[in-house]
């Protein structure tokens, strides 16, 4: 289950960011590619476990699932449900996959004492 080690990596990344600490970290905003092989629910579960272990309370995890991004040989760039779908412009399936394979921590939200 690599979600656990990804969860550790993301929390570590968050805590290494300027102005972010175990006491003020509240939200992790994550982008999870449909082709990443990472299960979003499992990832969230693992982040909660890691956070708890580090004494970080009340953290929420927001995961946006990113569809595959395809670049067709005709020049059209589009998001598709699956990588075998046809290009909306030319109808072919000759594309490069330009996105949807990665998982990354996009941003975090911290409690800065104001609401």
């Amino acid at each position: 289950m690599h979600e656990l080690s990804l969860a550790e990596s993301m929390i570590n990344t968050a805590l290494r960011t300027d102005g972010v600490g175990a006491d003020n970290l509240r939200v992790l905003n994550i982008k999870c590619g449909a082709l990443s092989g990472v299960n979003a629910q499992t990832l969230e579960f693992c982040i909660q476990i890691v956070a708890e272990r580090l004494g970080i309370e009340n953290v929420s995890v927001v995961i946006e699932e990113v569809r595959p991004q395809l670049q067709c040989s005709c020049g059209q760039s589009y998001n598709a449900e699956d990588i075998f779908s046809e290009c909306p412009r030319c109808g072919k399936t000759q594309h490069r996959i330009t996105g949807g394979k990665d998982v990354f921590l996009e941003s975090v939200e911290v409690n800065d004492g104001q609401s």
Partner: protein
Amino acid sequence: MARVNVDTPAAGKNAIAAEKNRRLFRENHVFVMNMIGSPGCGKTSILEYTAENSNVRCAAIVGDVKTALDADRILDRNMPAYPIETGGGCHLTAVQIGSMLTRIDLCKTDCLFIENVGNLVCPSVFDLGEDIKTGVLSVPEGDEKVRKYPELFSRTDVVFINKTDLLPHCEYDMEKIERDCRTARPGVKIFKVSATKGLGFEDWARYLEMNRKEQQNGK
């Protein structure tokens, strides 16, 4: 609440170990293929054939949940082979590969095959530090595999379609599976073979030889 941009890819322990392996492979000019396919698709049989028929200096790391049987089969054909028993693990990890590398004479190896545990899911997302992922399919598994496992086949630069000797006994649309492979990964090299009958390996032999030359130029 204040929002802080981070924009950092998640790189767990495995990714860090994989980068370390990759550096070692590059320094020693070893071409590394991570072979991924269902249980019984013929990964070991392809390596057996290669051990018997290629002059390229190869070695293999062989992952299985239990036993060193497959590594022994390859060793019997005079290719150095190192078993990793995962003890239940459904894929190899970069850390396991890293700890095996101290035992392999990388200077005298042009091509290292890593036979992953038979599984089309988990191995596809665990980078081992390899140059390329190689998918291994076989005819009796059916011709929908590429569609069912896009995570894997969007990452494979080489695909074997094995057990072609069974084509007369199976309904199998070869053109369709080849098309799917190319849609999932443009530029993929496809080798249609029968490992046990030794058929269709001409292009594979040329491919290995080409990579051997490239590695040896660097040594």
